[in-house]
């Protein structure tokens, strides 16, 4: 009959050094796995939105300030934005209706939607119709090459003008 060795760990008491070592290893493992998990989570949250898409650019030049004489309200169809100039103050107001996204046109009193009759005043505030929100204003800046630049990615408060 063969005599097997008794299982060592069952009877052996852990020394203090071994205990420390195990605690250390457990700590390292958990930091590693937990850290990876956090980084992955952050990456996923960030990369869920593409950094570049192939649609029309959000930031675009629209020409020199001189192209917009004082008192004009020029709607740029392809960009869906209306450039308003009063004296040396310029602003860019969206021409996409806040109701169902129709293209609205500047009117005598402000803006009017041809589809469902929403009305906005000169500053884009709702004066009638089904539109639930005022028209957003977009950031307007003067690019170094002397052209006006509209950034549709950045909304600014109504009444924010660019002085030229």
């Amino acid at each position, binding site marked *: 009959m063969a005599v097997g060795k008794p299982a060592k760990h069952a009877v052996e008491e852990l020394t203090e050094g071994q205990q420390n070592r*195990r605690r250390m*290893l*457990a700590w*390292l*493992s*958990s*930091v*590693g*796995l937990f*850290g*990876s998990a956090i*980084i*992955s989570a*952050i*990456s996923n949250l*960030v*990369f869920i939105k593409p*950094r*570049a898409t*192939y649609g*029309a*650019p959000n*930031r*675009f*030049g629209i020409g020199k300030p001189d192209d917009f004489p004082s008192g004009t309200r020029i709607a740029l169809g392809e960009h869906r934005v209306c450039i308003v100039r009063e004296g040396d103050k310029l602003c860019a107001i969206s021409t996409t209706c806040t109701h169902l996204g129709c293209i609205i046109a500047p009117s005598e009193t402000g803006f009017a939607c041809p589809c469902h009759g929403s009305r906005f005043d000169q500053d884009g505030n709702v004066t009638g119709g089904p539109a639930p929100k005022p028209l957003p204003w977009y*950031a307007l*800046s*003067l*690019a*170094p*090459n*002397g052209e006006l*630049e509209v950034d549709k990615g*950045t909304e600014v408060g109504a009444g924010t003008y*660019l*002085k*030229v």
Partner: protein
Amino acid sequence: MRLALAIAAFVILIIHGLVFYDQFFHKWESYQTAYFDQARALAKTDTERAAVSGRKPRIEQTIVTTFGENRVDRCLTCHIGSDDPRFKEHAQPLRSHPFSEALGDRLLNGKWERRHKFSDFGCTVCHDGQGRGLETFYAHGEDHYWNDPLLGYVTQHDWRAEFKDKLKSTEFMQANCAQCHTEENFKSTPLVAQGRQLFFRKNCYGCHRIEGLSSGTLGPDLSEVGKKFKLDYLWESIVDPRANSKTSVMPQFKLSEAEIRALVTFLKSRRGINYSETSLDRYRATLAGKSTVGKVAQPGQPGAAATSVATASSVVATVPTAALGEKLINDKSCLACHKLGNQDGGVAPDLSFAGLVRDEQWFMEHFRDPRARVADSIMPSFGFPETDFLSITAYLKSLTTPPPFTSPAEFFKGTCARCHGEKGDGKGAIAVYLEPYPRDLTKAGFMNSKSDERLITSIKEGVAGTSMAPWGHVLNDEQVRSLLAYIRQTYVKDKQRPLKERDVPNTNPIAMSAESVTRGDQIFQQRCTGCHGKKADGKGPNSLDILPRPRNLHNADFLNATTDRRLFESILYGVQGTAMPPWVDYGLTKNDVGNLVNYLRSLNQNAQTTKTGNKH
């Protein structure tokens, strides 16, 4: 176990960390941050400061939809200061793009205004490179063989040293302007226009095809050459055609450096597409059978030739004269291949005594279709107007000064050696361009199996269907005899033996009939195709290992000038000094040979009626 787990967990963390870092910290972001910082420091007014203050690094991209296929350009992501005049002196990648009158930029009230706005045109349409790339390697193309190399430094720094200073970036950028500005004489691309003219004036079009411009087939198609090759490669190919292809038959044109520069720029502009056309335009153009790339008609086509080529060489004439012919020969680069007097292109036969050895009809047939009289000639078909051909013919006919015959040795050296070689071994300077290859005069087997009469006839009357000209108009009988004696003595090492009397009929005893031709065809397919090829064009599977090459049996001029007796002798008893065996040893009877001869004659029957070669 626990240790392994701990290590694995840490390795994963490190990998994750690296990926995270790689995806979040880009070089272009630091470029943009640097730009914002410096722009803020440079700002003079509040407006300027405000314009920069809100901005964060992000991918700047232009989508160009106006010209042909949509192009996505992210170049401005790194070159973010391109349109900021304040960064004129800054180091790349932030330096602003220079303004220049040549690009159409205008100076208005002390401020420059761009003609080609980056938002409309993008960058890669002029500069090449890959618009989507966000790293130097991908965007600029560091790869030596990158398809669309950047035209700037990146491709220039590893150019062949001797070409480096010959091309300046502003010059070869014209090649890219020409991709949209295809007008023939667009003022901002003078080099391209000059190169295009040279392409016609130097007769490049005779060999090379460029879609919409020319239809040559001898050389490579150059329609997309600008896409495939870099500038130094193009330069090298023009200066030294055999640098990249040892077997190239392209002659070395004597071009000035300025001319090469123009040609290279023109060739670089040939990309096969034109950005200013939509794909729909191109489709319509192909349907209409002509490309809109160039407004020049196909020179290969009759009628069109007169306009494009005549204007290209600026020689318009109605009355053919020898003087005009002389001018044409010099202008049109005939001497890039041919020899005339002191000028020698080193490719094609000597024209110095052309008036003595060929007649008007031969010249005209040769010009209209170079393969009409020499079946395998490599001379391109140049679509010159008929008056030009008549003028050149008149001039060549006027060249009737015979070469001096002081001694057979002198004559051989001056006249025969160019093809047959200084050593008479058939390896003359231009031998590789001639088809069939010049006879190797040192092969005793051949030379001693032929009678003096037969060889004298070859010298005097030439060999029809080959480049061997009839020298009987230059030399008298006595001179021919002494020349042959000289050749036998100097080059044929073995002594001449008395010829064996052979049993061959003088004319084919088998009457020409469809049945006989079919039998001949059968025998030919069984016995002869190994060398002469299934099509009897001399390009059989064994032909490459044999010199002299097997005869092209479609060479009507040659066959029609060859007697039945000679064909019988060659087939039955072989041609000594060549790979042609004596078929009488392999069981061919006279009747078989008769059928074969009928078959060969039938191959060339159509040509027979139109030719005036001396018949058997």
